[in-house]
């Protein structure tokens, strides 16, 4: 796609004292895609998202969302009209009822879809007259999601949206995301639930320790990451396999396991040149890609 990225950051950094939460992030999120932002707890996902929305000021670096600078309060406010966001802790006002919450939030947006709101209210079985503070955690999560899903924003940013949902709720959420994506909404969501990500995401960003380690389309990842198990007649020399694309090498006696993010063909070729007796190339599921990437770092 040649269209301009919806989210773009350049060397975005956030430090708290001497500890860096986000380090030199160069993120680029394409429009009309579902992009998943993967990382362990504390990897810097929420801090990044908060910087994008102007809740946290970057220590250095810059970024734009929908072409508007995140460090400019005025532009940032303008951007928030077109962006729907649900924070990690599913924030709501305890002193409002469900109905009051919906009325309050909806008044700020011209892209509010009352039909979807009432449909979701029914599907989620949310009692309109109940005070938010007396709702269960699952219901609060659903209400917080409803406030973002009942719009047609240009960009939807969700921070750990499935946290606090049961499997049925998660499935429903993913369906909603897919439906919004079909309407042309760009979706950027953070998660550490690989299973939900690998079905709906077009694009994957893996963040670890504040650094962006992977930024690629999921199809590309699936096609290029390979695990190659090799058996040699004599204990193999690891350095022969330290080539571009090889992320990790493990050897045990005559066996060797190579984990490659690309260039698996070259690994296979070298293995044959070194008279490997067995060469097995296996695709790698996203879960393993994630774990290997994070371990690597």
């Amino acid at each position, binding site marked *: 796609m040649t269209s301009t990225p919806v989210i773009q950051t350049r060397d975005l950094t956030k430090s708290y004292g001497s500890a860096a939460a986000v380090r030199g992030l160069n993120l680029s999120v394409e429009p009309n895609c579902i992009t998943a932002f993967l990382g362990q707890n504390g990897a810097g996902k929420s801090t990044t998202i908060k910087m994008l929305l102007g809740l946290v000021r970057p220590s250095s670096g810059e970024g734009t969302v929908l072409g508007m600078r995140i460090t400019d309060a005025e532009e940032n406010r303008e951007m928030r009209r077109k962006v729907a966001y649900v924070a990690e802790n599913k924030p709501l006002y305890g002193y409002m009822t469900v109905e009051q919450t919906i009325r309050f939030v909806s008044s700020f947006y011209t892209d509010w879809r009352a039909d979807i709101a009432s449909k979701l209210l029914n599907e989620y079985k949310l009692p309109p007259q109940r005070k938010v503070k007396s709702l269960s955690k699952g219901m609060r999560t659903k209400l917080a999601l409803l406030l973002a899903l009942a719009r047609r924003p240009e960009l939807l940013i969700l921070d750990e949206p499935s946290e606090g949902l049961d499997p049925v709720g998660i499935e429903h959420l993913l369906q909603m995301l*897919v439906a919004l994506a079909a309407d042309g909404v760009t979706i950027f969501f953070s998660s550490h639930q690989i299973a939900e990500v690998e079905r709906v995401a077009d694009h994957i960003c893996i963040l670890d320790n504040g650094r962006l380690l992977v930024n690629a389309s999921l199809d590309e990842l699936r096609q290029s990451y390979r695990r190659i198990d090799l058996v040699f007649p004599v204990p193999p020399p690891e350095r022969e396999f330290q080539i571009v694309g090889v992320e990790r090498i493990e050897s045990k006696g005559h066996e060797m396991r190579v984990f490659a993010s690309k260039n698996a063909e070259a690994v296979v070729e070298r293995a044959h040149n070194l008279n490997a007796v067995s060469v097995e190339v296996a695709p790698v*599921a996203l879960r393993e890609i994630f774990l290997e990437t994070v371990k690597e770092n």
Partner: protein
Amino acid sequence: MNVFFKLTTTTGQPLYLQLMQQIRHAAETGALQDGDQLPGIRTLAEELVVSPNTVAKAYSELEHDGLLELRQGSGAFVCVKRRTRSLADHVQVARRRLRDLVERLREDGLLDEEIRRAFEAELLYPAETVRKQ
């Protein structure tokens, strides 16, 4: 919809390729007939809970291959041409030959799991097969 699709995330194969293969397979086996209509991108994406881009990519690749005809606003239609039919015959023959081959490999003492991995390796790296010979 008259066909079930089942996409799995555990294999290393992109979802759009899986979908393409399953549509093609359905057309070859006759589960999808010439002129049958496939669900719209949005509907199928919601049903399979995959990104609409996945469905769109599969559809447009299949259109490129001539197996689907995308009509503006009214969806995707299967167009099974003679080529596809003869392909179906080829597949029949290929399966028979594969069955024979698998039988022979088993006789040679290979376990099913080993055979499966060998097939996968060959399919993933066809160039390698040529070079070895």
